[in-house]
């Protein structure tokens, strides 16, 4: 770890600077901005956790909402009995254990079957929990009695998000990260070259799920009450997946890049025009597959490099304009290629 850090001093310095700046933000920002950032961090952390497993292994999971909801319920049940930090930790552990069981039984399913299974899993957990609450507890809602300020939630989520991004970046540079990418390239080959694919998959699936559960638990502190349809809302699964793919699941910072525009868009549209947001999400899916297979991150990286090497157009603001211009050009070229039938 240390060696990795000293080898990339500029990245480390920039990350530390950004972390400090963001941590101090609530001192100057309004309550609305703090709330917006809370939602943003939640999305970034979820998308990074999703990409940590699904991006490298290419097991496309739609179970984000399931683990997120498990975290919410774990907190709602635990926070009455233990202090809140312990309840948060408990939520992460519960998420880890649930994912361990799910992973052991399902990660031999490949491709579409895994997608459909994870989608069904969310629905199954949702329905069973709902039934349990009605049948056994005779109520569909649980109240959250935590008295936690928005600023503490902000700082907690910021820490979770940073740890997730840095952790995901660190793991991608270890043997485990390499094993995950090998599984994504060709699982049979990976197994034959000596990768313990089951162990790598299950452990990383569970780690990613524990982050999702933790994010759910922290967000639950803001809600006055919860029920199964709040906790297990499928929109989370889809928005997280799209954030990660839009940003670029191949880089640790990619999902964060993708989450920002989607959170802003949903903030702008979801309240007043929820259906238009779903249309925009759908178009995002289509655009990614046809025009941005690797996401935005590789584009930014490529243009940053060419700008750093002094080859970019000087007349455009660097970093932003050249990617847009060349993206349009590449998109047009691809469009022409696609429809030549």
């Amino acid at each position, binding site marked *: 770890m240390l060696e990795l850090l000293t080898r990339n001093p500029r990245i480390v310095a920039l990350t530390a600077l950004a972390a400090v700046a963001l941590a101090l933000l609530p001192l100057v920002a309004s309550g609305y901005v703090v709330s917006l950032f809370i939602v943003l961090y939640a999305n970034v952390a979820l998308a990074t956790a999703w990409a940590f497993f699904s991006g490298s292994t*290419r097991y*496309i999971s739609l179970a984000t909402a399931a683990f997120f909801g498990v975290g919410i319920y774990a907190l709602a049940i635990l926070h009455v009995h233990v202090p809140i930090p312990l309840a948060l930790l408990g939520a992460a552990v519960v998420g880890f254990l649930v994912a361990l069981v799910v992973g052991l*039984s*399902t990660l031999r*399913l*490949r*491709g*579409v*079957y895994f*997608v*459909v*299974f994870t*989608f*069904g*899993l969310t*629905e*199954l957990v949702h*329905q*069973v929990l*709902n*039934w349990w609450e*009605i*049948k056994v507890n005779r109520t569909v809602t649980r109240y959250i009695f935590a008295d936690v300020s928005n600023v503490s939630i902000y700082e907690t989520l910021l820490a979770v998000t940073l740890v997730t991004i840095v952790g995901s970046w660190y793991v991608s540079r270890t043997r485990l990260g390499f094993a995950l990418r090998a599984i994504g390239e060709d699982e049979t080959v990976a197994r034959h070259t000596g990768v313990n694919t089951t162990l790598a998959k299950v452990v990383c699936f569970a780690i990613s799920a524990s982050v999702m559960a933790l994010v759910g638990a922290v967000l639950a502190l803001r809600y006055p009450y919860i029920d199964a349809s709040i906790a297990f809302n499928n929109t989370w699964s*889809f928005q997280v997946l799209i954030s990660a*793919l839009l940003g670029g699941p191949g880089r640790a910072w990619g999902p964060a890049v993708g989450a920002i525009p989607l959170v802003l868009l949903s903030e702008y549209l979801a309240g007043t025009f929820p*259906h*238009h*947001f*779903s*249309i925009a*999400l*759908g*178009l*995002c*899916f*289509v655009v*990614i*597959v*046809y025009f941005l297979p690797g996401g935005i991150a590789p584009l930014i990286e490529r243009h940053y490099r060419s700008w750093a090497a002094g080859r970019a157009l000087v007349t455009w603001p660097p970093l932003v304009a050249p990617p847009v211009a060349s993206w349009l050009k590449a998109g047009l070229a691809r469009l022409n290629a*696609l*429809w030549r*039938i």
Partner: protein
Amino acid sequence: MILFEVFLGGLLLGGTYGLIALGLNLQYGVARILNLSYGEFFMGGAFAAFFTVFLWKLNPLLSLFISVPIAFAMNWLIYQYLMMPLIRRAPDQDALDADVVLVTFGLFFVVQGLALVNWSGELRGYSFLSTGVPVFGATVAANRLLAFLGACFLGLALFLVLRYTRFGGALRAITIDPVAASLVGVDVRKFSALAFAAGGALAAASGMLVSTFISFTAAIGVEYTLKALIVVIMAGVGRVTGTLAAGLVLGVVESVGGYLLDPALTIAINFGLFMLVLLWRPTGLFTRA
């Protein structure tokens, strides 16, 4: 006796499940495109029937003359213009599946969003043939019976076409191995496009038949996509006769299970059964291992 009525209800329900899944199995089995926007065409068929009754005061069956050709044409276009580029660039089926899942999820969001914007999220429904018909001493609703008979008819017709025509032979060849099929002179692209379009047309037809006895909203598509997918995976991809049988199994298990345990658990029973099949026999119940 009550159990028999529940069983019969499950059988009728299962027939419609089979009907809904038939088209998806054509699309995934023959054309190898897992269309997750499938349920949107089901929703389209249901809304076409609703508008036929509500605006023009006509028999909902007449809506089939509009909705089926439109769904056929739209699915043909989707295959030719949206799926073909993906098929061409994909190195293998897994990569294709990943792309297709994303694009068709996108289509599903777009179509559902447009439908919700234009037709609002209100619950729709109309009454058609809602009288009781005695069957073996039990009473069943005529519209459910109609949907069941429609399922049997379409399933049988599809089976006969696949079994006894040259066109069906070509489709079966593509199902087994597209490369080998093209080697013996089957125009794989043309026939896959037709199978995909026919699958979409079946979705619209089943939407019309089912809309006679359910109330629905513009957001109903995804629920039926999932149900169809469950049935297809239970049956085995590319198994037409298996589809109806798997639909019947699912319908009966759901009804009887819901009756014995708790009606609120039917969706959970659905998914539970589906997961069991996935884990125990991922290639489907009606395939030779």
